[in-house]
């Protein structure tokens, strides 16, 4: 494999490119279909252990006024444990409110909230995965890291999304727990054939099997050697609304440890 060194490419990005195999495994025969699960696993692995994002979300309902959220999101993933701290910056009446979610493999989520007006951190009943996050069109399920063990993946073919050729992969709940808790009967995930990044997800309703949501990812930029979509537009068909999420800053946080994302430290500003 020939890697052309681009001016300005960081050592880390280079390392990532050199270490990571291309998205479609080359060990297979050129015409052999790539393994769908492996493609999704590659996408999931394409992230740093600790990341910090600053997000602006705008909810655009069909009727009524639009509303905005500004958030700082810290994530830490290691050994099958994913931690996510969402800190609200705007609207002002909820500024500094923090929501910590800890996902452990095979366990219910742990969720803690810090309410700045009360200066109190509380354990709360974990949100249903189908609940909407902060009244956006993203459900908690949409924000979770992909659970490879809980899904079956099947390559349906190739399709173009966001101007790029993509693998079209169907993900269906494989475990009974996933079938129960997920709001979707299946998802169609479009992953770029060139790089480990998702460019579109179509989500189908659990009951009727109809298309309920479409997430379109764009503005892919390199973050610590990993391609990251900085713009996501989620179209929610039953609600007739859209949420546009723009990542204004996305950095690898090498100092971020799992111990920094604990209920005790929710009170801190981060």
């Amino acid at each position, binding site marked *: 494999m020939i890697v052309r060194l681009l001016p300005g490419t960081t050592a880390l990005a280079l390392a990532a490119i050199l270490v990571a195999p291309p998205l479609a495994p080359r060990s297979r025969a050129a015409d052999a279909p790539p393994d769908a699960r492996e493609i999704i696993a590659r996408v999931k692995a394409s992230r740093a252990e600790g990341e910090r994002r600053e997000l*602006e979300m*705008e*909810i*655009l309902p069909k009727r009524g006024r*639009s*509303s*905005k*959220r*500004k958030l700082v999101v810290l994530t830490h993933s290691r050994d099958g444990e994913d931690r996510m701290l969402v800190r609200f*910056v*705007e*609207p*002002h*009446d*909820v*500024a500094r409110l923090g929501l910590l979610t*800890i996902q*452990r493999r095979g*366990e*219910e989520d*742990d969720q803690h909230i810090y309410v700045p007006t*009360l*200066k*109190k951190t*509380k*354990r*709360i*009943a*974990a*949100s*249903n995965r*189908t*609940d*909407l996050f*902060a*009244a*956006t069109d993203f459900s908690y399920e949409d924000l979770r890291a992909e659970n490879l063990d809980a899904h079956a993946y099947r390559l349906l073919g190739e399709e173009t999304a966001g101007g790029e050729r993509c693998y079209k992969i169907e993900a269906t709940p494989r475990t009974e727990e996933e079938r129960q808790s997920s709001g979707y009967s299946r998802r169609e995930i479009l992953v770029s054939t060139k790089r480990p990044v998702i460019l579109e997800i179509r989500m189908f309703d659990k009951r009727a099997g109809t298309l309920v949501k479409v997430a379109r990812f764009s503005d892919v930029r390199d973050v610590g050697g990993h391609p990251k979509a900085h*713009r996501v537009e989620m179209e*929610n068909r039953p*609600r007739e609304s*859209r949420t*546009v999420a*723009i990542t*204004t800053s996305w950095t690898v946080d090498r100092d971020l440890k*799992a*111990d920094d994302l*604990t*209920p*005790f*430290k929710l009170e*801190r*500003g981060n």
Partner: protein
Amino acid sequence: MLGRRPLPSRRVPRIAIAALLAAAAPARADDRFAEVPRLPDWIRGVARYKAFVYPDEGRQENDRVRNQVEADLELAPSLDPLLPGLRAETLFRAVWDDEHLSAGVFDERDERRPIATFREAFLAWEHDALELRVGRQIFAWGKADLFNPTDTLNPRDYTDLLDNEKIGVDALTARWFASERLAVEAVFVPVLFTPNRLPPRGARYDLVPPDFPIRIADRDIPPDTLASSQYGVRLSGTVPEADLDWALTGHHGFDHWPNLKLRVRRLPQPPFFEPLLEPFYKKQDVAGLTLSRVFGPLEAHGEAGYFFHSERSEDEYVHYVAGGNWRKATLADDADELFLVLEYAGLAPTDRRAPGVIPGVWTTIFRSALLARARYSWNGGDLVVETTAALLLHGEDSQYVQAKAAYRVFEWLKLTVGTDILSGSKDSFFGQFRDDDRGFLFLEASF
């Protein structure tokens, strides 16, 4: 084209810049997130207008309308360049009202609330698992939602009994995050004791009835000596496998509510003697235990404080609260949420009262009480309707209900309207204020 309105808050000056951009720039899909000059995130502020309207003059024959204006300025800059891990947090408050409930500046021990003060102002330094704080701080111990018997470190400002808040104390705090399952916190409040601020005499919700036959003397505040220092310790833990949080707390200090001592003052002329009630503040120790566990959509909690005294000369009792909260999202719409809280607060005496001390009824209002809250939030908080109720079951029944609705007019402007209703017999705690029901309107602009 959707969403052309710029983010209204934290942009300076919002309207002018937004108008300029809208006129000058062609509309594109992501213009809504275009970079506009902003105040840094560590500067925040709120300007608040409050109007209280009373249908009755009440037992103190007060004005029927009170207008109040408040301004909060919150600064939380990182001071990393000075010392890695160092930051400051300050919350400055200015308040004015047309009932003259405020006076003076910066003195949190004054019987009147200050016109200008720092509610919080501290330096915090973090290094690895250690955090140190020095300065004026507000603490929040306990996991219960509506009443926390173990949350005894801060006094409260009851200038308006129904619109009260904590008063910051000047303290040194050390926190050690021993692991992700255990944290230890030690608090030292040196020398200065700050009592609860009570409603001023003659004001609405004055805790002393207007026809009270005995004169109340000046407060006897503990002297500003090292012996008046207070300290507290909290061990907090979390057990993820059991969905359980716990805390053990200890506080050696004072009851922030006054007790009353009967004294007799000599007079130079008949009747030669005058009885006086002197408010004083007794030392107390509080050992607390808090538990909180999640059962599916229900969070259940229990919190108890054992109040005792080193000298064993005062009442000893256990004040506790038990209850839970339940929340349900996606009711009428996917972005709505219902949140319910129900708690029972009780008190179990464990030792007798000292002779000569008149029971401090305010200390233990929730001797036996049901507390409840129901909140419905539409579209992520654009409209929130909330009702809170306290039913006192001890002695003469009395009730307090607050109902309010808060509407986010813009992301930087919130309008709240509501009512406070008090009922019960005249001799009961809330019933004594049954002619002081009110409606209120708050308008809150933030940047």
